[in-house]
């Protein structure tokens, strides 16, 4: 099957700075791919090259096996949202959509259809300056959907969305991909897209560090199991004897790495140690993401542990 999106040794340099460095990947139809990396990793630059807004320094960026600019009526094949702010504040949402639908040779009525689709129909006649950030995100998505495209490319779509909006977007993208269409969605927070995507591309400093399915990535993380027992010392001994690595909570709580709860429970049973609590710790996908992307692209861009990184400050 041919690739819907293909990057071939894609590179982009701005003077001395290499923003995208020899990036290659293929995306197949019907998949949702998370394009992940810290701020400044080259995600947005890559998307701009895929969409023909920026020229690669070397390599090729292809959609449907062609450079974007060579697509006939591209809006009918590719929908994209790069910034949530790409509107004239004094123009109504409906008129914004109509300027685009006209350029794509679509009927004006299509603007109302997509407004209904993103649940903005009542606000369509209002000037965009009165829209909340969530409404602007949805208006951008409506514009991307005008041509009923087969491929959606979204740059940080969850920025500024409330939890309800994030859930709405997730359901929407799931339904979109279920029709055999393709989604490429970027984010600097893995957790934001982990429930949505099938596979991930993780970039750091312009280079691809991981290309894998979400399932493989999760398996690679390995579970960790928290166990509470009145006899921590004896359990630790038994676990280490079984070749498992532990780290301590306190004398009654152990954290066991790389094992399932079943295995830990069986070892405890065999050792005759009572267990009061046995819990598989929630996915530590975010931890491995931070490890993989340690040392962010620009000095000082690395967020402090546990803090929400600032929104992309690129222009």
């Amino acid at each position: 099957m041919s690739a819907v999106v293909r990057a071939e040794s894609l590179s982009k340099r701005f003077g001395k700075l290499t923003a995208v460095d020899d990036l290659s990947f293929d995306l197949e139809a019907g998949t949702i791919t998370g394009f992940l990396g810290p701020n400044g990793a080259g995600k947005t630059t890559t998307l701009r090259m895929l969409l023909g807004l920026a020229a690669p320094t070397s390599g090729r960026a292809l959609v449907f096996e062609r450079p974007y600019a060579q697509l006939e009526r591209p809006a009918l094949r590719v929908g994209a949202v790069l910034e949530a702010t790409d509107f004239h504040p004094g123009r109504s949402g409906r008129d914004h959509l109509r300027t685009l639908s006209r350029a794509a040779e679509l009927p004006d009525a299509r603007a109302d259809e997509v407004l209904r689709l993103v649940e903005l129909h009542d606000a369509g006649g209002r000037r965009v300056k009165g829209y909340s950030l969530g409404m602007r995100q949805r208006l951008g998505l409506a514009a991307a959907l005008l041509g009923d495209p087969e491929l959606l490319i979204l740059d940080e779509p969850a920025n500024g969305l409330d939890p309800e909006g994030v859930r709405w977007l997730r359901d929407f993208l799931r339904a979109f991909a279920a029709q055999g269409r393709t989604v490429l969605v970027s984010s600097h927070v893995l957790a934001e897209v982990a429930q949505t995507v099938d596979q991930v591309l993780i970039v750091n400093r312009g280079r691809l560090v991981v290309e894998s399915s979400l399932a493989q990535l999760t398996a690679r993380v390995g579970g960790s199991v928290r166990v509470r027992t009145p006899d921590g010392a004896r359990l630790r001994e038994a676990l280490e004897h079984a070749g498992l690595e532990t780290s301590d909570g306190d004398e009654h709580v152990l954290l066991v790495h790389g094992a399932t709860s079943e295995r830990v429970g069986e070892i405890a049973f065999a050792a005759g140690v009572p267990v009061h609590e046995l819990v598989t710790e929630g996915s530590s996908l975010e931890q491995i993401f931070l490890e993989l992307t340690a040392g962010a692209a620009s000095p000082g861009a690395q967020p402090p542990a546990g803090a929400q990184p600032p929104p992309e400050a690129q222009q």
Partner: protein
Amino acid sequence: MIAQIRAELLKVRSTRTTLGLVLGMIALILLFTLLTGLLSKITALSDVENQRDLLSLGSLAGIFSALAGALLVTSEFRFGTIRPTFLFTPRRSRVLAAKLVAGLLAGLAFGVIGEGIGFAIDYAILASRGISLVLSGGEVALLVGGTLAATALWAGIGVGFGAIVRNQVGAVIGLLAWGFIVDNLLFGLVPSVGRFTPTHAQDALIGLKSDHLLPPAAGGLVLVAWVVALAVIGLPLLARRDVN
């Protein structure tokens, strides 16, 4: 291409910016025509050149038309709408061509409104003060037709200038300085060069009789050449530069 022109015309109509420019244009033309028409002596207004100057005040529409043309490009960069515009029409030459056509049409509308109001008021003032029109029918036709053509072409100049400058504030200040200061300075200091500036090509096109001006037809061609030259410079800049 028709599709892109329709899109651009909707962009012109769907914000209040254009309306603001039209109102500003009307206010300025009213101010100048009323001041000149009411404060000048009857003897002065009976003179053919003074009458021509009075009736040419509608050509102030040109600078507003140029600003409207420039904003057609620069507001897209200012508000980021250039991204969806290029996503929907990745052939950037087509976008610029559509903006030129839409700009020329919008500029023509500016000319019709500006010259219409200016000429009607001037004519009413002359009639009410009992001054008879001494300009010939051909001269009036040149004045009106020339103003319409020049005002439309000014929008084309604005589009090309906007494509080169891209920055909105820079383009607006640049156009105002160009139209009101540079052209007049150049014409005052080096008239053999200054007569090729858009402002003085326009004066020539509408039949003004100042010294050193080109013949009307040559003035019109010079204005067309400005539109073409700026578009030719602006196109590769628009096509090659990355959009952030």
